[in-house]
């Protein structure tokens, strides 16, 4: 089957995907699938979404060449797709605006969402405010503690934030709790999943709303350089910014697709969130994919300095792209990501989210490899800079041992 026709009608990407959910949710998933199909064929739907993207979110986002950073990437050309410049600071808004419009079409007035670092929660709270919907965000207790600023942002936007104290109290448990809410509230509520995971049709719908990233990359490359990129690269947690970055290139085999997972302390240590590199095939949150699990199939806790990548599964289409070899996935450790974060700050004056820093670190080794393999091909890598780093300043300060105090004092009375 041609990649563009995937998933099949039941949401399968070969052996991956599907719907492993309580029967109570099937009717809502069917409704969502139908509504998306209708909306997708409706020019008015896309015109409204396009208007919001341009005039509310700030699309198209720039494609920024970063020559000083590229010196550390084997000297290849490196371009950043600036999803960090979207309203709310990341690519998450692309999907949220689309699903919020679908919610309204379905006549539902309440949205719920799960969030890890808080980026998707903030984006969902934003769209709910914009469209006058009720919004509840589930967030692991561990994450509400370490991301208090984003909790406050969501509350300011009018959302209710629920700290989830079950299980490991992180993103996967927030997703469980959102699913439980949805089982009980499905008549009036849409579960606005933030990534390309979960039961069919979510992986497909979220990909289609994130596709705009690769569509713009392709146009911007053609306009400015008259060519395709050699490779596109993105970080992969659940994998929504990566699929958005890949989508329009999947059927273009001359463009390499590279996903960088969170390697935490290193895949060999077992303390990581690299489901493709260090996991095995299983079922989690309604879909068959690569999962971090123990010998019984119990989910193992993931570890990453990046809350947004700290998830023990991955979207089923990534599992398929990895299994078929169309895309390549590598793990980036916390240390490599933090070094890349600092490097981009110092060379280009751009502070990336720690999630996106994984893609930057990956581009550094990828660039050196491409420079060695294809020296005459003028290799060009487009890296999806999925989010901005403001939310990560506390984490970065702690990691780099910064105190937040001035370097010097002057002008005072001795």
């Amino acid at each position, binding site marked *: 089957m041609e990649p563009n026709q995937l998933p099949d009608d039941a949401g399968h990407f070969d052996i991956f995907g599907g719907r492993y959910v*309580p029967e109570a949710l099937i009717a809502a998933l069917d409704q969502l699938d139908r509504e998306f199909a209708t909306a997708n064929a409706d020019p008015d739907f896309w015109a409204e979404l396009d208007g919001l993207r341009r005039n509310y979110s700030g699309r198209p986002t720039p494609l920024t060449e970063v020559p000083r950073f590229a010196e550390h990437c084997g000297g290849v050309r490196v371009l950043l797709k600036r999803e960090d410049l979207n309203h709310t600071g990341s690519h998450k808004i692309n999907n949220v605006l689309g699903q919020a419009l679908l919610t309204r079409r379905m006549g539902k007035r309440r949205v719920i969402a799960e969030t890890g670092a808080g980026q998707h929660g903030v984006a969902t709270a934003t769209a709910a405010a914009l469209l006058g919907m009720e919004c509840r965000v589930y967030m692991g207790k561990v994450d509400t503690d370490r991301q208090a600023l984003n909790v406050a942002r969501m509350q300011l936007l009018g959302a209710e934030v629920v700290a989830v104290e079950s299980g490991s109290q992180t993103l996967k448990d927030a997703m469980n709790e959102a699913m439980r809410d949805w089982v*009980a509230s499905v008549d009036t509520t849409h579960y606005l999943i933030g990534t390309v995971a979960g039961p069919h049709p979510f992986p497909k719908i979220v990909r289609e709303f994130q596709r705009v990233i690769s569509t713009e990359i392709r146009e911007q490359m053609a306009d400015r350089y008259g060519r395709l990129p050699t490779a596109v690269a993105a970080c992969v947690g659940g994998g929504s910014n990566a699929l958005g970055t890949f989508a329009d290139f999947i059927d273009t085999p001359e463009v390499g697709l590279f996903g960088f997972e969170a390697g935490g302390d290193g895949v060999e240590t077992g303390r990581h969130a690299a489901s493709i590199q260090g996991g095995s095939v299983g079922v989690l949150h*309604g879909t068959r994919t690569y999962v971090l699990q123990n010998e019984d199939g119990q989910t193992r806790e993931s570890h990453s300095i990046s809350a947004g990548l700290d998830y023990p599964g991955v979207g089923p289409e990534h599992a398929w792209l990895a299994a078929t070899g169309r895309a390549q996935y590598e793990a980036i450790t916390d240390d490599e990501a933090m070094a890349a974060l600092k490097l981009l700050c110092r060379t280009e004056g751009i502070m990336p989210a720690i999630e996106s820093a994984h893609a930057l670190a990956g581009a550094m080794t990828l660039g050196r490899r491409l420079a060695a393999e294809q020296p005459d091909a003028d290799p060009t890598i487009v890296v999806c800079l999925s989010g901005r780093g403001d939310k990560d300043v506390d984490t970065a300060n702690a990691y780099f041992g910064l105190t937040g105090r001035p370097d010097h004092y002057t002008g005072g009375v001795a």
Partner: protein
Amino acid sequence: MNPPSSASAITAAKSDGRAALVGYLPVGYPSVAGSLEALRTLCGADGETPGVDLVEIGLPYTDPVMDGPVIQRAGTRALDRGVRTRDVFAAVEAVRAAGRPAVVMTYWNLIEHYGVASFARDLANAGGSGLITPDLVPDDAQPWLSASEEHGLDRIFLVAPSSSEDRITMTAALTRGWLYATAVMGVTGTRSSSSAAAPELVARIRRLAPQTLIGVGLGVSNGDQAAEVATFADAVIVGSAFIATMLAAEDAGHPEDFTGLRSVLADLTQGVRRR
């Protein structure tokens, strides 16, 4: 010899002129040994109550999306204390030894990881009657449909108030043994009031699939509710109400004290026997 069908417990109760009582407890809570003792109590092995007619043995999972806080808490503690998938077979044997049919209820990843065919074989060998699959709908169940046929196991699928007529018909056709009707839109857990959705759902199933035995679960916690559900369902399913007594006993420092469990059990067994 093939294990008994779990439906036989329901038809036996029916010929008694009443609905069957189905009790759920997780293996591994308060410990593996303690859970076997609790399961024997549930079967009425101590002679203090008639016990349940059929036992659902829960196999704890890290991400149980159909379970409310009570079952989650017991499951998390069981996992923390090291319960393994293979322990469920010992639990099945304990229930069989206490003279009741046993079905397992768990999430699909654990079965898939054990190996669908291996799990079916080992469950049948332990004397288990079948499997309830809260996150596996027939659409994605092909390996389980074949394995359950091969080993003569019941496959109990769920239907919900939101299920369409087509889905009820399809699910009832592929269910073997009986059908699990979720009484409310929601997860497991006790509820003080019963919902109108349950009798409506049961009436729809009876119209669409008249031969199907129907168990109703989610929210039943006492004899009065059980008696009410028994007026329209073939079996009444109770879980959280039992487990809540065990959590309370542990919190009071007596994890092996099943006095509370016996008392809820006595109320419920009387409930399904009211005329």
